[in-house]
């Protein structure tokens, strides 16, 4: 137990901050994912074949390639890509990107592919009559989306989005390979310096279980909120 003490003697406070880091990366990645889903869902649902192709390319490639490979691409290629863009604007110094940004971008793009599929499914399962009724009543496209489609879509999407959240949360453990100090990396450091890997990795597993358990509780509440009237 003294291994988990707070302060200089134990690893309690380090692991606590690492847990906060995991939560922060997961939330950022999820939001980045929503942003990508917002772009690619309309592409996938578009009438135009070429736009469909772009949308399908994104979801197929990201969901068919291991997460770790995507993270390596961002880790080794991220600063190169940013420096290339910067060089166009006449900036030639070395730019190092923070591990947090690299990690949440990489996980965000992965999570976005899953979110896109969830949103596509949810929109497609809304009754066509809803769109038609909105049109007949002369509701503008904007209001139609925000006041009619979105509330119904969220109800259908929340159970699947909770799966995406779980996947995202677990995927953040892979960012430890880039050196960002989240739960997995902190456990690695602690295990290395105390030579007690069994304890620290098991404790990491408990922390992840706690996070998934608590987030499930929270999401269930949301689910109840958005299924009012059903």
């Amino acid at each position, binding site marked *: 137990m003294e291994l988990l003490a707070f302060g200089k003697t134990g690893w309690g406070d380090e692991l606590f901050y690492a847990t906060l880091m995991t939560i922060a990366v997961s939330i950022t990645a999820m939001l980045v994912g929503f942003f990508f889903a917002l772009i690619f869902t309309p592409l996938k649902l578009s009438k135009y074949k070429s736009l469909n192709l772009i949308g399908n390319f994104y979801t*197929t490639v990201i*969901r068919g*390639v291991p997460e*770790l*490979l995507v993270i390596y*691409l961002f880790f080794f290629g991220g600063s190169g890509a940013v420096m290339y863009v910067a060089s166009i604007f006449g900036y030639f110094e070395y730019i190092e990107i923070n591990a947090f940004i690299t990690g949440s971008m990489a996980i965000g793009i992965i999570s976005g592919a899953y979110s896109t599929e969830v949103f596509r499914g949810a929109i497609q399962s809304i009754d066509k009559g809803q769109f038609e009724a909105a049109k007949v009543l002369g509701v503008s496209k904007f209001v139609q989306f925000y006041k009619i489609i979105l509330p119904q879509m969220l109800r259908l999407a929340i159970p699947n989005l909770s799966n995406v959240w779980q996947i995202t949360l677990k995927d953040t453990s*892979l960012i430890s390979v880039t050196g960002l100090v989240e739960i*997995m990396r902190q*456990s690695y450091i602690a295990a290395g310096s105390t030579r007690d890997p069994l304890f620290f*990795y098991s404790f990491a597993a408990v922390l992840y279980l706690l996070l998934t358990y608590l987030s499930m509780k929270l999401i269930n509440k949301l689910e109840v909120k958005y299924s009012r009237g059903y």
Partner: protein
Amino acid sequence: MDFDLMINSFPKLLSATVITLKLLSASLFFGLFVGLLFAILRINKNIFINKFAYGYSYVFRGTPLLVQIFIIYFGLGQIEYLRTTFLWVILKEPYWCAIIAFTLNTGAYTSEILRSAFQTIKPGIIEAGKSLGISNRIIFYKIQIPIAIRQSLPAYGNEIILMMKGTSLASTVTLLDLTGVAKYIISTTFKPIEVFIVAGGIYLFMTFLIHNFIKYLEKKYSFQ
């Protein structure tokens, strides 16, 4: 774009794919048995057996695969007693540790898939078997299991693809699988995009094959 590098790295990556496929097939093979075992425990009426099976699947589905590999590869070696038993022959090899972790992980997901398949079998089918005087054992082996396997094919296909992606984590315990070799080439040449295209292409091709194979099986064993 460095096409020479892409062409040169292709054979290296292809030979690493063999390890990925070995890891995948071994863990799927053992995982199917573990999954079937725990699915049967899950539908057991005894509350302790039931809760135990639920606990197993909850823990393995609620924690990242990376943690599971690390516990098995780095953690278990710490127990002095294990080092003296024959198990140590297996547990000191990263290859077997990875397979054990993957097996337990895919076993947990497979048990959930099979459980839901068992539970969606229409009671009428079992009743029909009973009224024909077929024994409970034969109903289970010849009626329930085949129907459950057919029902779970689409979900199991997804699990195979997820597991194929999961095998990339073997590279974190020093194994040189497809991702491991890709990372090695990237870190020596600093050409991430080229290597990503080749390695990603191989992974996508495997996904494509698995997807179509499952589709073929679904069609072949459809109820119509």
